[in-house]
């Protein structure tokens, strides 16, 4: 008699666990950086983020893995999608981190993402405190520089905070408040092609001025509520891609209001709702994104577990055109440098 077993650990959307060496071009690859040693605050716990987001993705996996020749229907748009395949999405697990050693952790995570992107895959990197976004972008930047030396990278930062300090606390240049600043200094990242969505609460002037001086744009949570998620996402996406070939998107889950998402370090009480964020991400998903990350999920601050589920859903929303093949009449997404098909309304969402 055949014995059925199921994996003893959770991979993202129950995708196959593979070695980085076995990653193939065109795949979507999930990896994790279980590290919160650059946070230094009371509300730590993002080190458990990657595995928690994986667990949180399992409910969604049930739906996305339903095998049906008719495919899945997105009731928001009426679009049809083929169900998720084991070829399209794989999980390479977590890269090694060193709890007391930020530079060594940086090297490890950056190399991991570099290896993924170098193989022609789309990287979804799960943090970690928001500092780990920098090693992820660093690995992406290096791989792009190697394969396409002339390619330029735009940047969209979805977060309740700017993370654009030069020094998070005096003398500290590598913290979860400096990651975007360090990314802006990468050679193929275009500083004037950086966009922020979701700023809320008190924010120091210095980083705001630095962003605007560099040509970046900032949209606050209030901008999203008032102008609508679609308009703001388009303005941010257009700004990031205008002079660039690819966009790196970072999603700090604390962009969500604490009433919906308590499980994160720096909570906000005047932020956007999951519905608004989902719309922002659906619009951005049609842009030529090269790699993305999801940061700051801290499960010990949310016993209900919903923080991981929301983060997983948001990751899938942003990566969806790359995860699920469209089987309806609309033209396939073309993801080539300089392509502007994302500007056409039918290609969105």
């Amino acid at each position: 008699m055949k014995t059925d077993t199921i994996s003893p650990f959770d991979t993202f959307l129950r995708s196959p666990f593979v070695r980085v060496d076995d990653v193939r071009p065109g795949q979507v690859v999930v990896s994790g950086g279980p590290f919160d040693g650059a946070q230094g605050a009371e509300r730590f716990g993002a080190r458990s983020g990657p595995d928690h987001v994986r667990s949180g993705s399992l409910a969604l996996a049930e739906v996305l893995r339903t095998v049906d020749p008719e495919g899945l229907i997105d009731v928001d748009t009426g679009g049809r999608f083929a169900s998720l395949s084991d070829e399209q999405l794989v999980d390479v697990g977590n890269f090694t981190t060193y709890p007391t050693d930020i530079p060594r952790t940086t090297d490890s995570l950056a190399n991991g993402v570099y290896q993924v992107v170098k193989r022609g895959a789309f990287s979804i990197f799960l943090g970690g405190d928001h500092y780990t976004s920098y090693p992820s972008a660093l690995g992406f930047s290096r791989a792009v520089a190697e394969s396409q030396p002339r390619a330029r990278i735009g940047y969209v930062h979805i977060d309740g905070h700017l993370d654009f300090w030069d020094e998070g606390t005096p003398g500290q240049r590598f913290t979860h408040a400096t990651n975007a600043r360090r990314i802006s200094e990468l050679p193929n990242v275009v500083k004037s092609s950086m966009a922020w969505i979701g700023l809320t609460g008190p924010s120091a002037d210095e980083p705001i001025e630095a962003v605007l001086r560099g040509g970046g744009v900032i949209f606050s949570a209030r901008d999203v509520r008032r102008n609508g998620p679609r308009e703001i996402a388009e303005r941010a996406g257009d700004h990031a891609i205008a002079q660039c070939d690819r966009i790196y998107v970072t999603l700090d889950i604390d962009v969500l209001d604490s009433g919906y998402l308590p499980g994160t370090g720096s909570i906000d009480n005047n932020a956007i709702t999951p519905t608004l964020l989902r719309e922002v991400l659906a619009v951005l998903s049609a842009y030529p994104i090269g790699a993305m990350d999801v940061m700051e999920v801290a499960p010990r601050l949310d016993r209900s577990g919903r923080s991981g589920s929301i983060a997983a859903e948001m990751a899938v929303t942003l990566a969806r055109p790359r995860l699920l093949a469209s089987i309806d009449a609309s033209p396939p997404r073309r993801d080539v440098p300089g392509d502007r098909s994302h500007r056409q309304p039918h290609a969105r969402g």
Partner: protein
Amino acid sequence: MPLVRTDATEFTGIPTFMRAPSVDIEQVTPGMFAVAGVPYDLSARVPGARYGPRAIRTASSNLFAVPDGLNEGWTDAESAGRLKFRDGSAFALGDLGDFAVTALDWTTTSREVEHAMHETASAGAIPLILGGDHLITLPLITGFQEAMVKAGRGRVGYLRFSSKLDLGERDEILGDTWRGATNRRILERNVVNPSNMVWVGVGGFVPEPEFELVRSRGMRAHTVGEVRSDGITAVTHRALLEAGAGCDTVYVSIDMDVVNGAYLQCQGIPSFRGLHNVELQEAMNVLSGSAVGALDVVGVNPLPDFWGQGQVASYFAASLIFYFITTPRDCGRGSFSETFQRRASTTELREST
């Protein structure tokens, strides 16, 4: 190297509210915002609000270290305006610690809290009280009003953010003085003129006699429905005008149960028709620009809200008080970047001329 740093990580140091100086009553100066806790919760359905003052103080360490100042170089993301403490260079915040509470004896507790509030208000401070269950508002407003009478400003309005009216009669178990009768007792003590007793955020089921009392005595209750149709800012303005009509000052009480139970896990009796958390923060905008003479925040129960729920209620309560002691935010029509840049250029212009 200093031995002690106020700008260190938030889990270090003695957790006074926003790391303000710990003061005793002799050090309270006129105009000072004086924080005090009232860790009493024996009238609550679910005990735990006795831990509220400590939890709010701990959460407040995540905000600003008061000694380091705020007046230069901070922006509020909502309005893109400059974030400043109220009263500019005259701004002062002190933490008195907790008022004396005799755990099992409401009569003594009530007398002591009333006296402590009287002393604090008499010193000219604007008391910021961390509760405690909402019965504590009874001795607090009584002590506050007595102090105002002595100062020749005895006409006090009363504005309460709560999902309930708390105008109940005697409770079979808890007696005459219990949380659901807080405002009935305030009414009977004549510390406030009924027409200056105003509620914002009343929702869900309210006993008919209580609503009838509001009508017959000329009190005002603004419902959640009214907030939905007119907006929280307009309703708060309206309520503040009504509470302050003919008065010298207004006492404001915020019961956390006014916030929709979907956002906060601190409530004994959550209401799922309550205000959005954002709305209560917007109401603080109106309050911070007005002549509110005392503020209490009650009903923060950290037990169901602790680590496993992200301590959301404690952080929320701390941020409400933070927005009360900063200048009101003028949310204009421009986007964040436009408003910020316009502000920056006018500042430069002013500084260069």
